[in-house]
């Protein structure tokens, strides 16, 4: 027994510290992304970012488990088409001054989503796509849409779909921006809540492994799997059963509750920075709006 624990202990020191996953010295965001990819490859041998970006659904764990998430079946196909249709209506709506969302983004919004969240050097804050949409409304004298509302999640999904297949290209190009990235990373690796979990505990250290209990009366296969941190952002916002759409930050909140922590509120600086860091991890990977398994 002692030997077993000692072995576990050593292994833990060698590979498992969420806080030592990232280089401690001053590094660029890209160097940190690459070191995280290395850490993940150690845990998921024989796989790489090309597999991870497809989501747990397409990912066969190193121990041969076929893991699954929400299937792309007829119901979900209908749901996502309906959702995007509603989102398009919201996007196309003419403001009182005759303008619309497409006036607020370069290239009428095509390929804009792949660059969000952005660091705004003027206000020195991270601007998520949702906040950019609300800034657009405010700029044109329209009332903002509540974060987390059904309307916002559908609008967000449509705005993302204008970048379908586009590679994520989040920029961290100044020291001030790197501070926000670092703050997001710090939250990602910090233990929180009664369960004492860090995001990295599940999405890096135990990524790609089943976690949680199957719903009563379902097969054990329905157990959820810890998504792999690199590649998650391509499929945000996510389509859930019954046509529910969850924004990135609503997904963060759900996992904070899973850790037994009181979640930060939508649009808070904490969650904006976390979304900035987390999205950057998927740089170079093509966007798959609503992320159901295909």
């Amino acid at each position, binding site marked *: 027994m002692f030997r077993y624990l000692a072995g576990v202990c050593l292994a*833990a020191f060698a590979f498992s*510290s969420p806080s030592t996953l990232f280089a401690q010295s001053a590094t660029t965001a890209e160097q940190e992304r690459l070191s995280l990819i290395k850490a993940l490859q150690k845990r998921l041998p024989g796989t790489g970012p090309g597999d991870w970006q497809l989501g747990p659904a397409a990912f066969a764990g190193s121990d041969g488990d076929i893991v699954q998430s929400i299937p792309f079946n007829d119901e979900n196909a209908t749901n996502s088409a309906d959702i995007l249709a509603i989102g398009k209506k919201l996007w196309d709506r003419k403001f009182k001054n005759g303008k619309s969302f497409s006036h607020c983004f370069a290239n009428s919004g095509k390929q804009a989503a792949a660059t969000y969240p952005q660091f705004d050097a003027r206000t020195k804050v991270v601007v998520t796509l949702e906040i950019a949409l609300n800034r657009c409304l405010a700029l044109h004298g329209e009332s903002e849409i509540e974060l987390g509302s059904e309307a916002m999640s559908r609008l967000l999904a449509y705005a993302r779909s204008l970048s379908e297949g586009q590679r994520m290209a989040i920029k961290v190009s100044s020291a001030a921006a790197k501070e926000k990235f670092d703050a997001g990373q710090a939250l990602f690796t910090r233990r929180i809540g009664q369960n004492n979990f860090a995001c990295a505990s599940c999405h890096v250290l135990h990524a790609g492994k089943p976690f949680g209990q199957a719903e009563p009366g379902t097969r054990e296969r329905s157990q959820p799997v810890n998504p792999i941190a690199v590649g998650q952002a391509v499929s945000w916002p996510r389509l859930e059963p019954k046509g529910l759409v969850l924004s990135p930050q609503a997904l963060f909140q759900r996992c904070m509750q899973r850790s037994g922590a009181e979640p930060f509120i939508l649009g808070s600086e904490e969650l904006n920075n976390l979304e900035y860091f987390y999205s950057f991890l998927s740089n170079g990977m093509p966007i798959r709006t609503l992320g159901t398994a295909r």
Partner: protein
Amino acid sequence: MALVAKTPCRSLPPSTLLLLVTLLWMSAAQASVAEGRRLFLDPKKGNCAACHQVPGDSEIKSRSKIGPPLVEIGKRFPERNVLRATLWDLGTTVPDTIMPPYGRHRLLTESEIDAVLSYIESL
């Protein structure tokens, strides 16, 4: 004192008394195993099957491999205190463990921990 003097046990022969006590003790232990199993599975309490497989309990169908399968616990942890410490706060021996510190963070009360221990020792 008066209460004790009035208990019917005083009039029973010692062997019957022993049997009664044994039966009571056994059912109490069983109750605690059942209670421990309930806490083990409860997603708001132990939620242990979220991370562990339990090959010795065929009704628990977990395919989790985050933690090791819980087998022969009684044999491998002959000292309850060592096993208890694992549940109370595994972080003291495995600093970066993902297993929640059930005692330190009061996810389980001390008596609930004992019940869960009785259950896993029975595996």
